[in-house]
């Protein structure tokens, strides 16, 4: 296991930021950490990196307890944060030298390789203040890669990037996983990116984990049926009366009862002379899943 959190709690004064969080990230996975602002994602990442001390519980990274053996735990870990901060008045290369020396001596050849890998060759001697947001993001990846990590932690890496930048970041993360075989923990608000990249996710809500599972399972889960008809209300009432659906969502979709099919629904509507312009099973997106999950968890959180 690359990351293991066991019943971790973090309090800031009276406020509980993370509560009873148990999380396991196996080697080789791209693991997504989702949650609203203030859900506890950054606090959880802070605890993994030994920047935030847990109030209770055990945090292990690369097999070492971060609170006791922080330097050993982080030996092969790289991290990239929401807004990569550098010494803007120094060159990109000098920044890489400074940051890499906090881990281990790094050869100029290794720096050259990594600069090349992220596509900053030719600009590494320029002051960071002259870099675009995308170049800063690449420099952030370069600094994380220098110690030849096995685990990369991304905390909101797409924030502030334009669509091209987000696509580039997604491709880079996929490359890191494919070419370097890294284990990646990705905390992000960009559900589309998480859906495309991650194999497994956990969702935090008000500091508690409300879901953990495979992306493939979420997609395969029973989804909604998109029903295109001029008389949606009548169609929904009829299908509900016949026990085909449990209800309607967003004014254009219905949710089938367990064991019922779209073919049955279509037949009943046609027999009742309700025109059916289209009916098809919609694969559940991560966004649908996430929003349902958060909505369902909200009353519980409000009670707390």
């Amino acid at each position: 296991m690359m990351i293991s959190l066991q019943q971790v709690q973090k309090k800031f004064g009276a406020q509980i930021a993370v509560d009873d969080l148990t999380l396991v990230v196996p080697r080789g996975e791209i693991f997504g950490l989702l949650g609203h602002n203030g859900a506890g994602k950054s606090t959880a990442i802070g605890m993994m990196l030994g920047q935030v001390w847990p109030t209770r519980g055990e945090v292990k990274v690369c097999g070492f307890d971060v609170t006791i053996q922080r330097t050993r735990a982080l030996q092969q870990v790289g991290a990239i944060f929401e807004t990569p901060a550098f010494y803007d008045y120094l060159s990109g290369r000098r920044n890489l030298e400074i940051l890499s020396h906090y881990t281990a001596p790094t050869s100029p050849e290794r720096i050259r390789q990594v600069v090349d890998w992220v596509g900053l060759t030719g600009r590494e001697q320029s002051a960071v203040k002259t870099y675009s947001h995308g170049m800063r993001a690449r420099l952030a990846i370069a600094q994380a890669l220098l110690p030849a990590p096995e685990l990369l932690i991304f905390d909101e890496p797409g924030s502030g990037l334009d669509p091209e930048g987000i696509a580039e970041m997604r491709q880079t993360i996929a490359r890191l996983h494919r070419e370097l075989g890294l284990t990646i923990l990705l905390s992000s608000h960009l559900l589309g990116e998480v859906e495309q990249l991650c194999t497994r996710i956990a969702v935090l809500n008000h500091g508690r984990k409300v879901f953990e599972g495979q992306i493939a399972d979420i997609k395969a889960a029973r989804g909604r049926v998109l029903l295109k008809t001029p008389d949606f209300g009548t169609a929904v009432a009829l299908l509900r009366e016949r026990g085909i659906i449990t209800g309607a969502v967003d004014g254009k979709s219905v949710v089938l009862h367990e064991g019922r099919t779209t073919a049955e629904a279509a037949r009943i509507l046609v027999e009742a002379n309700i025109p059916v312009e289209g009916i098809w099973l919609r694969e559940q997106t991560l966004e649908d899943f996430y929003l349902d999950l958060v909505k369902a968890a909200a009353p519980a959180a409000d009670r707390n």
Partner: protein
Amino acid sequence: MFFAQLKNELWKLFGKKRTYIGFGAFVLAQAVMLLMFKYTHWQSRLEQLLAQNGYLAADYISALTVALVMLWPQIALLMPLYVTLVGGDMVAKEVEDGTLRMILSRPISRLRLLLVKWLAGVVFAAVLVLALGVIALGFARLYFPWTGMFVFPQPNSTFGLFPPDQGLVLYIFSHLFMVVNAVTLLSLAFMFSCFNMKPAAATILALSFLFVNVVIQHIPFFEEYQNWFITHHLECWYWVFQQPVQWPQILQSVLTLLAASATAFLIGAMGFQVRDIKS
């Protein structure tokens, strides 16, 4: 590795434009003091003072005398301000900018990180004081001859007069003790910087601490308790010009200042060790 990390901290410190702007401000202040000495009544009054005591002004209004005069406002005002500014920035500014989060995602212990930062601060303080001493002497030498040294009187003491060689040695010694002063001031601001506060707050707290010390130190009731005030010990650089030199007293003050610096560092390190670093 330790020296590579120290070198990097120095790169950060000396790579900033602000560092040189600060140095520039000092040099400017020195130039102003020099011109004021030369072109106001200051010089003529000193000549009168010397003449009234039976000395030739030409023998003592020298590069060494003027260099010391030029240093006074800097020691009293500019140096505490600038050194605490740098010390207050050392940790708090990195937290504010977000670079500390990048550093602390790496396998370096917090204590070691603070140690290299503090040592970089010590180097900075030493370079600042020594550079100022050399520049002041160089400036003064442009306009004044290399003759004996006059030192303004200190409390419970008369003024000092020294031949140029002895004056130079004392000038060098005074700067070594000034380095200790600067390190103490820096350590104080550094300590506050380790806690959860803005860089400016760390600087202001350190300066406030000094200000309160000065005020209480000068209340007559506390006259017998001078040794308890850090600002009293900060005067040790000037005591080398007393005749005879009170080395035990100076040594006691230097050790007190070094102990205060170490204590400030340790308090800062303890505060830094337990705090959470968040974005």
